């Protein structure tokens, strides 16, 4: 009996320590490549490539994936996304009501909708700060030299699924104006060589 107590005194703190360390380890294991899903209603059934997942952060492989959200009183929503390495892609899944129960749900849960909006907005701010760091010209855009050309930024065609990548969009009607827009980028103190530039009509 005394021996059992001794063993208990020795092993109990050890077991406790192991449990604490395990909790710390698993709670700190953050997702670095995957998707972060926000769904409305929150109890929607979520599927990633046909397999049920929960909302929030989910690890995925890099590449193309299909996310589906289902709910009895809402239209099924399906989105195709592409995850790249070291990116957690935020995917809002707000379903449209298909019957009165669904409509009533939104009326009674406006706070949830606002919360989703706030989350997306905060993610957008985070991405914006990354974009400004990577592409300093963004701070000086848009440049509207009407009616000659306009320089702005938008989605990158080279990295279409990476929200932190951008392309410069130059809108102009003549080749000479296009040329002047490039010269203007130099005059602003930036090198066009560092930017994916997409030309379009004004």
């Amino acid at each position, binding site marked *: 009996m005394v021996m059992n107590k001794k063993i208990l005194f020795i092993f109990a703190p050890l077991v406790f320590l192991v449990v604490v360390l395990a909790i710390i380890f698993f709670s700190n294991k953050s997702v670095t490549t995957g998707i972060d899903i926000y769904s409305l209603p929150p109890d929607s059934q979520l599927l990633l490539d046909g397999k049920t997942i929960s909302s929030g952060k989910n690890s995925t492989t890099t590449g193309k994936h299909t996310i589906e959200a289902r709910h009895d009183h809402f239209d099924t929503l399906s989105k195709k996304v592409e995850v790249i390495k070291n990116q957690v892609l935020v995917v809002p899944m707000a379903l449209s009501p298909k019957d009165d129960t669904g409509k009533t749900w939104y009326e009674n849960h406006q706070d949830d909708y606002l919360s989703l909006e706030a989350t997306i907005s905060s993610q957008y701010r985070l991405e914006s700060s990354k974009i400004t760091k990577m592409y300093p010209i963004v701070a000086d855009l848009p440049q509207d030299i009407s009616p000659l050309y306009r320089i702005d930024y938008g989605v990158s065609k*080279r990295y279409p699924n990476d929200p932190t990548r951008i392309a410069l969009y130059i809108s102009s009607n*003549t*080749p*000479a104006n*296009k*040329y002047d827009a*490039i*010269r203007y980028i*130099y005059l602003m103190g930036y*090198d*066009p*060589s*560092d*930017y*994916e*530039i997409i*030309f379009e009509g004004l």
Partner: protein
Amino acid sequence: MQPVVNYFENTPKKKLATWFVILILLLAVVAMISYFTWDYLVNNKDVTLNPTSGTTITIGEQAGDEPVISKQIASTNIKKTIRLHVGAYAVKFSASKDFEPQVVGININDTTEITTPSLNYTDEKLASTLNSEKDSIHSVIWGVVSSDKYDIDNDTLFYTGQWYGARLIPKDWYDPNVPADLQPRPTNPNNKLDMFRVVLKKEDGKWKVVAGPSVTIFIKDYPGVPEDIVRSVNYLGFN
């Protein structure tokens, strides 16, 4: 009456003081020798100058922050090791008259080996090389854009003549109603063609287009083309 102390007498106190002074002096000498030995061992580093064949490396004291040799320390065209105090130096790499000498600043903090980097041709050598290569380069470009519609402008060779960049200007880019010598030349509002930039590389004796033709060249689209060449070609005509 107070006894008079004669400090010149050979008293035990005087002996002790003498020995004390000698000991201090000895310690000072030992400290100095130790310092200089330590300084030589710790603050002097082996620097190996290893010039590639046909090149010379010259190292010297650096004048201020600029990489300029103010006082030459060593110059060699064969492998040679010298010992230098840690600090900032200027190193000049030179070769035959066809190559542009290159001077760089270097911080010696540890044992270092300095080898000759790739030296570029001088502007004169690049110009003469361009003259001999121009026809074959242009024939490759005319395979990509029409010589009826475009002129090649700002032909430029880079490095040792294996990289080439130019602007391709539409034939009716400039306003034909304005004299050609008017600067800056006004553009033709009726022109419908873009001005392009193009980079070619000579590989296995043949020129081929490696970037463009495009209005601007995006560095990340052409990882095989050195960044400084893309930047230079994009900037052609703007300076």
